[in-house]
């Protein structure tokens, strides 16, 4: 079993929380993993990506080789397209459709969505809206993780435990909100199929 995942978005959108959740789950599932993340200047509203590698065998590189990623999980639609060269031809593109506009020349959203829809394996959802609906407006990232969770080959309850671990410091309300976001995200996948 091997899963190479690119997690992308804009600094501050909760990319590291997605990565940390998969990380804790991988640890409990006794899998090898490597997860590289971005700190420093780029975190200030710039484009950020995290490479997440999961396997039942030891992993060498911290970075995913070009064209070998099994999945892109993106918290921002334009950012989901930035790392397309990393995605394998049969890989999944799972993205939020709510744009994060902090640049004056942000492209036309319809053009971006059309480009996303061109990929045979895509899940494009308004994760922001779903997160609000479950009463946890900051959990768009976890909605997307939920949507991606079927492909992770990690048990549902292990992923739930990982969410509890990641958000433990933020209190029980935040944990429950994220668990709801995760569940709804996961059910979206079922409805698509």
């Amino acid at each position, binding site marked *: 079993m091997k899963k190479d995942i690119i997690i992308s978005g*804009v*600094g501050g959108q909760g990319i590291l929380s997605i*990565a940390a959740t998969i*990380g*804790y789950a991988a*640890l409990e599932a006794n899998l*090898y*993993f*490597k*997860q*590289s*993340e*971005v*700190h*420093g*200047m*780029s*975190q*200030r*509203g*710039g*484009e950020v990506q995290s490479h997440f590698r999961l396997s039942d065998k*030891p*992993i*060498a*590189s*911290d*970075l*995913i*080789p*070009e*064209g070998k*990623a099994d999945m892109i999980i993106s918290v921002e639609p*334009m*950012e989901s*397209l*930035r*790392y*397309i*060269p*990393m*995605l*394998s*031809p049969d*890989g999944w593109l799972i993205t939020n459709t709510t744009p994060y506009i*902090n*640049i*004056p*020349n*942000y*492209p*036309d959203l319809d*053009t*971006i969505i059309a*480009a996303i829809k*061109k990929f045979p394996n895509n899940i494009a959802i308004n994760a922001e809206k779903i997160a609000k609906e479950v009463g946890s407006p900051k959990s768009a990232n976890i909605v997307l993780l939920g949507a991606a969770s079927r492909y992770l080959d990690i048990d549902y309850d292990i992923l739930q435990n990982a969410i509890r671990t990641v958000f433990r410091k*933020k*209190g029980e309300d935040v944990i429950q909100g994220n668990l709801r976001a995760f569940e709804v995200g996961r059910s979206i996948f079922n409805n698509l199929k």
Partner: protein
Amino acid sequence: MKKMVLLGDEAIAQGALDAGLSGIYAYPGTPSTEITEYVQFSKQALQDNVKYSWCTNEKTAVEAALGMSYTGLRAMACMKHVGLNVAADPFINSAITGAIGGLIIVSADDPSMHSSQNEQDSRFYGDFSFIPILEPTDQQEAYDMVHYGFDFSEKYEIPVLMRITTRLAHSRSNVNVREKREQNIPLLPTDPIRFVLMPFNARKRYKILLDKQPKLLEESENSPFNKYLDAPDKTLGIIVSGIAYNYLVENYENHQLPYPVLKISQYPLPKKLIEQIYNECDEIMVIEEGFPFIEDKLRGFLGLGSKIRGRSDGSIPRTGELNPSIVGKALGIEYSTGKSAPEVIVPRPPSLCQGCPHSVTFEALNTALGGQSTGRVLSDIGCYTLGALAPYNSINSCVDMGASITMAKGVADAGFHPVVAVIGDSTFSHSGITGLLDAVNDKSPITVIIADNLTTAMTGGQFSPAVGRIEDICRGIGVEEEHIRVFEPHYKKMNAIVQILKEELEYEGVSVIIPRRECLVTLTKRTREERQKAKAEKV
């Protein structure tokens, strides 16, 4: 055995705590910050009374660590690569005094300059200081090497340089950790004369340092971290260092290579092992993250001997970070790359947060300078460096920590007025104070803006050494009271702020302007924590 999930930086910190660390000293700098931050928030460190300190700069950090080593305790100093330039003086001389308690200096290089102004390779510092270097391949080695490094440092009475790069620093993986050991007991040295580097003694100590070198070489040749992995196809031999090893083996099924590989993670370079691979193979490919340090040494100035390939001869790109694809292509492996990115995407450079106090300061400065801002605003390193980009386009330089004030002085000395320096509170404490003293002594006509957001913001909000005392420091240095102006940078106060700036820009002496408002990121975090604490107390 206990397993933990750790960043490379955190693995170093946990490794240090488990290896009996007594003190860690640092100035924050990407990608090294998380080492000291981990100790700061570690319960184990608190329990064991391990000292941590965010120092004013890397030089003071290395000196404090050397002082702790002087008493026989194990100490660590952490910095980013350019920080080692600041700390070069104590670093190089600590090789001559030698260490007593285990002393490790960690320098985190940033190839591809993700968050830096250059991609210098710290191994050169180790080399010309005669200090042994450890270069971990992965998180586990980073953890294990700290234990090894402290022992090595104590055995040979020499500091050890640990060189990491961004990707290892900021990549997380499972790490097996071991039982912790006790700290050393502090004692004053029995031969303190060795720390007196007056010429008569420095000559003796320098000879002792040189005499240690054959032993250090022998250790490298037998190091558990340097491995010769033999293979049948001798048309090529691969010498690979540090994290580049991972990119190399990633390209081969089950991580098995057809060619002999020499993996290097401990320096001085293991001469016998290099001779072996050089003699056995027709060609040598050197793969290293950073500069062609090993490659150029092997090839030599005259490029004699069998063919050496690598970053210097163009087989691998000379600049930037490596990855599996770059290494694979250099070895002739075909890559079926994914589709190219759709043309619709545009770059998204980093920018100041919405509502950042610096944005008010920059807008006010632009207005106050009218049409003459271009070229007159010298600046520094921090979040406010983003003021060089649109929409502000307010600053004209970012060279090294503290250079804003001193460069502004040089521009003013050349006859220009007004000239402005923009520096943050933490950078001011790091290297701005001495430059300000120069300016005051010469009565240089410069306007120094110390943009005070009460924290070291760019690296994630660490302690800022001069906070709460900036006006006092300026007064103490001799800046005139009436030319120290403090205000809160808010848009609603824009007219008054512009007025203050205009007045001080006119003054033909040293002015210090302090826009002071807490960084939004730390403010949000602090408010959330306080709210939670209050909630917890209610329950």
